[in-house]
C-alpha cells in the first residue's frame, strides 16, 4: 500500500528550498536530450513547465484540448499576480507573503510548499518582465502595484484587467521559442484519456486526436499533469466550458491520491444566472468591492416586489436597505474574504431577500462611491455649491476610470446601466483548492507522475487569496518542477526510449477505445448536458456554499444513482473517428460524476468549517463570533488524501498531518 511521504526537507523553513536545491540530483545536459517528458495542459503551470523543461534540454511533448496553448483558461484571470517584491516599501517580505497565504488558506496548506512559493514569487516577476509581459507601470517607468483582499500590503502586479492573459501569453511565447527549436512537440486539440503505468511508474499517456478521433500512444519518462481545476463539476462555474478533471481523475484511478476535493472557492462577485439555458457564469473582479456597497431590501415585501418586477432598486429608501456585510462585519464590511462574502449573500437569498427573478442575486451599489468621489472632485476642482448632477457626473467619471471595462462587460451581458441601477451579483464556483495530492517535489503517489498548478492541492489550503493562483501556476512551472523533476529523472538516464508496444500501453489503449465505443453505440435517451446539469444541481444544492451531514449523504446517493443512469441512458451522437464535441463532453462528465461523489464524501468526512468548506454543524455557538465558521484544529489539521478503490464511495482516506512550526494557528475574525 502506498503511504504518504510529503518529502519535506529538514531544516529551518527559510532555508529548506535553497538547501534542498543544492543537494538535489541533476541530469547532465547530454543525458537530458535522451529523456522525454509529457506535459498535459498548457495553461500557466503547464505552459511554463513545458517551456522550462525544454530549455533545460528535455524532449517535451505538450498536450492541449484547445486549438492553441494560448487559449488555456489561465487567460481569464483578471486581477493580478502577487509577489513579495516590496517595491512599495510598505513592509512586504517573503515571510509576510508566506504568512498571508497560510492564514488566508485557513491553516490547511503545507507550510514548506507555501514558503517556497513566496520565495520564488519575486523571480516570477523578473522572468515575466524579461519575456516582455507589459505589466502596468507608473509615470516613473517602474512597476505599479495594487492591493487585494485579505492582506495589508500592495504586492499585486497587474496588466490592466487581463493579467492572466498577459502571463499566459508570456509562457506561450516561451513555449513557441522551444517549439521552433524542436524541443517541444505540441499536440493541440488532443485530449489525454488515460495514463500508462509500466512497472508502477508513469511512462506515458493515451490521447485522442480531437480532429480525427485517432487514439494515440505517447510514451515518456515522466508525465506532468497541469490540467487545471474541476469547478465544472458544478456545471455552472466561471471555468471555461472545456475545463475538466479527466487528466487528474484518470491518474487518481491509477493510483494517485486525490486531496481535499471539498475545498472549493465560491467567488462572491459574479453575474447572476438569468435562466435555465445558462451555460456559464462570468466573474466580475473582486476589486469592485473596494467601492461598491452590497445590500438587499430590509423588508421581505420589498424583496418580493422586486422579484416580481414591480419595484426597482432605486425606489427603495435608504433606511429600507440592509447593508448586511457592513451590519454583520463592521470591521471589514464589504471587504471580508471571498468565502465569508459568498455565504452571507446566500444566507440573505435563502431567507427570501434576493433581488432578481430567480431570487438569487444581491445588489452591488456604486451610488455612494459616485457621490463620495464626486464631492471629492468638486473640492479638488474648487467648485463651490456643486449641484447634485454635477457631483454625480464628476463621481461617475472617477468610477468609470477605475472600473469602466467591468461596467461595460456587465452592461453587455445584463443590458442594464450599472451607473444608474445597482449591479446584481451572486456567488459562483471559481477555483478549486483541492486536487491531486503531491509531495514537496510536486510528484503524485504514482512515481514519475507530477501534478502542478490548480490541478494539485498543495498551496492554498482551504481558501485561496486573490492573485495567488497565477503566482502558484508560474512558480510550479518555471521554478519548482524543472528542479524537482531532475531528482527523479536522474535515475532514468540509462533507460532509453520507452516503447509504446508494451502490454501496458496495449491494455490502456484498449480500455480507452472500449469507453469510446460504449458512448458511440449506447444510443440512450438523454444528452450529456442533461446529466451534467443534474449533477451541477445536486452539487450546488447539497455540496455548495453551505453543507450538512444529511445533505451530503443525500448528495452521495443521488450522484451515484445519476451516474448509474448515465451509464445506461446517455446519448452521444456522431461517430468516434471524427471531431465529436458531444463525445468529448461525455468522457469528461463521466469523470465528474465520479469526482462529485468523492467530493461529497470528503465534505462529509471534514466535520469542521474551514475556508471555502462550511459545515453547518461546525459554527461558533456564542460570543462575538456567533454563527461564524468554526475550524477544528484538534481533529482536522490534516490533508485528506483519498485512494481510489473501484468506486468513489469506497475511497480510502489517508491523512497527511499538517505541522505548523512557523505560524501560530488562529481563528480568522473579520468582525
Amino acid at each position, binding site marked *: 500500500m502506498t503511504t504518504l511521504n510529503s518529502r519535506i526537507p529538514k531544516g529551518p523553513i527559510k532555508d529548506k528550498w535553497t538547501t534542498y536545491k543544492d543537494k538535489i540530483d541533476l541530469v547532465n545536459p547530454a543525458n537530458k536530450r535522451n529523456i522525454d517528458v509529457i506535459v498535459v495542459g498548457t495553461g500557466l503551470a503547464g505552459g511554463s513547465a513545458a517551456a522550462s523543461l525544454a530549455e533545460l534540454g528535455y524532449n517535451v511533448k505538450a498536450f492541449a484540448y484547445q*486549438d492553441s496553448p494560448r487559449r488555456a483558461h489561465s487567460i481569464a484571470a483578471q486581477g493580478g499576480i502577487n509577489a513579495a517584491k516590496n517595491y512599495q516599501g510598505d513592509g512586504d517580505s517573503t515571510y509576510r507573503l508566506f504568512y498571508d497565504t497560510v492564514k488566508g488558506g485557513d491553516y490547511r496548506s503545507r507550510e514548506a510548499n507555501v514558503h517556497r512559493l513566496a520565495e520564488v514569487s519575486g523571480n516570477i516577476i523578473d522572468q515575466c518582465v524579461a519575456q*516582455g509581459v*507589459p505589466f502596468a507601470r507608473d509615470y516613473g517607468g517602474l512597476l505599479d502595484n495594487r492591493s487585494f483582499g485579505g492582506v495589508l500590503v500592495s504586492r499585486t502586479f497587474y496588466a490592466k484587467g487581463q493579467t492572466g*492573459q498577459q502571463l499566459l501569453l508570456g509562457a506561450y511565447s516561451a513555449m513557441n521559442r522551444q517549439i521552433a527549436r524542436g524541443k517541444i512537440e505540441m499536440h493541440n486539440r488532443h485530449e489525454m484519456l488515460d495514463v500508462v503505468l509500466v512497472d508502477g511508474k508513469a511512462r506515458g499517456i493515451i490521447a485522442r486526436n480531437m480532429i480525427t478521433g485517432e487514439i494515440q500512444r505517447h510514451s515518456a519518462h515522466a508525465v506532468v499533469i497541469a490540467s487545471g481545476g474541476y469547478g465544472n463539476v458544478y456545471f455552472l462555474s466561471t471555468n*471555461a466550458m472545456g475545463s475538466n478533471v479527466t487528466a487528474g481523475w484518470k491518474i487518481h484511478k491509477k493510483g494517485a491520491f486525490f486531496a481535499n476535493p471539498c475545498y472549493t472557492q465560491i467567488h462572491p462577485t459574479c453575474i447572476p444566472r438569468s435562466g435555465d439555458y445558462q451555460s456559464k457564469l462570468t466573474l466580475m473582479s473582486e476589486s469592485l468591492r473596494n467601492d461598491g456597497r452590497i445590500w438587499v431590501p430590509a423588508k421581505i415585501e420589498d424583496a418580493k416586489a422586486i422579484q416580481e418586477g414591480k419595484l426597482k432598486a432605486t425606489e427603495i429608501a435608504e433606511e429600507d436597505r440592509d447593508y448586511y456585510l457592513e451590519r454583520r462585519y463592521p470591521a471589514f464590511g464589504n471587504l471580508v474574504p471571498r468565502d465569508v462574502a459568498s455565504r452571507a449573500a446566500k444566507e440573505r437569498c435563502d431567507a427570501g431577500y434576493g433581488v432578481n427573478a430567480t431570487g438569487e442575486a444581491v445588489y452591488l451599489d456604486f451610488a455612494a462611491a459616485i457621490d463620495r468621489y464626486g464631492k471629492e472632485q468638486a473640492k479638488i476642482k474648487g467648485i463651490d455649491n456643486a449641484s447634485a448632477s454635477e457631483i454625480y457626473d464628476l463621481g461617475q467619471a472617477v468610477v468609470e476610470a477605475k472600473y469602466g471595462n467591468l461596467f461595460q462587460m456587465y452592461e453587455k451581458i445584463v443590458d442594464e446601466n450599472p451607473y444608474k441601477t445597482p449591479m446584481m451579483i451572486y456567488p459562483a464556483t471559481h477555483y478549486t483548492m483541492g486536487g491531486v495530492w503531491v509531495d514537496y517535489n510536486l510528484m503524485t503517489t504514482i512515481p514519475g507522475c507530477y501534478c502542478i498548478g490548480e490541478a494539485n492541492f498543495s498551496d492554498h489550503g482551504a481558501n485561496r487569496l486573490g492573485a495567488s493562483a497565477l503566482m502558484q501556476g508560474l512558480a510550479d512551472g518555471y521554478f519548482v518542477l524543472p528542479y524537482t523533476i531532475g531528482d527523479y529523472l536522474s535515475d532514468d538516464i540509462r533507460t532509453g526510449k520507452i516503447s509504446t508496444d508494451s502490454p501496458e500501453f496495449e491494455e490502456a489503449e484498449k480500455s480507452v477505445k472500449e469507453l469510446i465505443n460504449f458512448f458511440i453505440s449506447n444510443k440512450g435517451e438523454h444528452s450529456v448536458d442533461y446529466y451534467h446539469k443534474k449533477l451541477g444541481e445536486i452539487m450546488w444544492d447539497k455540496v455548495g456554499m453551505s453543507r450538512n451531514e444529511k445533505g451530503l449523504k443525500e448528495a452521495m446517493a443521488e450522484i451515484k444513482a445519476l451516474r448509474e443512469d448515465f451509464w445506461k441512458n446517455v446519448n452521444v451522437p456522431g461517430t468516434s473517428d471524427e471531431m465529436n464535441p458531444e463525445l468529448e463532453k461525455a468522457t469528461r462528465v463521466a469523470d465528474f460524476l465520479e469526482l462529485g461523489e468523492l467530493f461529497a464524501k470528503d465534505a462529509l468526512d471534514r466535520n469542521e468549517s474551514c475556508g471555502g468548506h462550511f459545515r453547518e454543524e461546525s459554527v461558533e455557538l456564542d460570543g462575538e463570533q456567533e454563527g461564524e465558521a468554526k475550524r477544528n484544529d484538534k481533529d482536522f489539521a490534516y490533508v485528506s488524501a483519498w485512494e481510489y478503490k473501484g468506486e468513489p464511495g469506497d475511497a480510502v482516506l489517508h491523512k497527511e498531518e499538517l505541522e505548523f512550526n512557523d505560524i501560530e494557528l488562529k481563528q480568522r475574525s473579520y468582525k
Partner: protein
Amino acid sequence: MNLTLKIWRQKNADDKGQLVDYKVTDISEHMSFLEMMDVLNEQLINKGEEPVAFDHDCREGICGMCSMYINGEAHGPDRGITTCQLHMRSFKDGDTIHIEPFRATAFPVIKDLVVDRTSFDRIQQSGGYISVNTSGNTQDANATPISKIDADKAMDAATCIGCGACVATCKNSSAMLFVGAKVSQYALLPQGQVEATERVLSMVQQMDDEGFGNCTNTGACEVECPKGISLENIARMNREFLKASL
C-alpha cells in the same frame, strides 16, 4: 423569439459543405448567442441528428476560441465583443441569421463552424518571443524603467486574443493586424529590441508563407476586432519591416 438559422454544415475538411436551415423557438433575449446554439444542439441531439460543431471555451471573451461569422460580420453585429459575448437581444423575433465559419485559405474548415487557426501559432513560433531562458537570475524587474506611455501601448497591442476576426473580416484575408500587434508589443519595449530585426522579417515571411493576403488598409479588421486593436500597429510593423530591410 423565433428565429431561422442558416448554418454552414460541413462534415470534415474534404466535404464540400452547404448552408442548412434550422428553426429555433422560444429564444430568450437574455441568452448569449452560444447559449442559443446550445439550445439548437440539444434539440438536434434529441431528434437524433448531429449537433453543430463550433469552437468555444471561456465564454467570457478572452480565450479567442469562438469564431463565427454572423450575418456577414465576424463575431456578429455588435462591436468590441466576441461571439460568446453577443446576446440575443441584438436580434429580433422572426430574423433569419446566417452563421458561417471564419473564411480564409489559411484557416481551413475542420468541421461545420470549426476552423484550423494553427497558422497563427506558426507565425508566433517564427519569432513572437523574446529569447530568455527561465533561470530566476534575469535582472530585477525594475532595473530598466519603461515609459508608461510605451508600456500602455505595448499592453494595448498585447491584448490581442488571436481569434482571427481580423483575417475573417478582411476582404484579402490578411493577418497583418494580428502580426502587427505582436511585432508592436515587442517593438515598444526595450526587451524586444535585441531581436527586433530578425523578428519582424521572419514573422512577416511566415505570414506570407501561410497564405494570408495583403493589407489594403480598408480598416475592417480594426472595426471588427473584439479587443479594438488599432491600425497603428500595422503601420508600426510596416516601419519595423522597412527598418529591418533597408
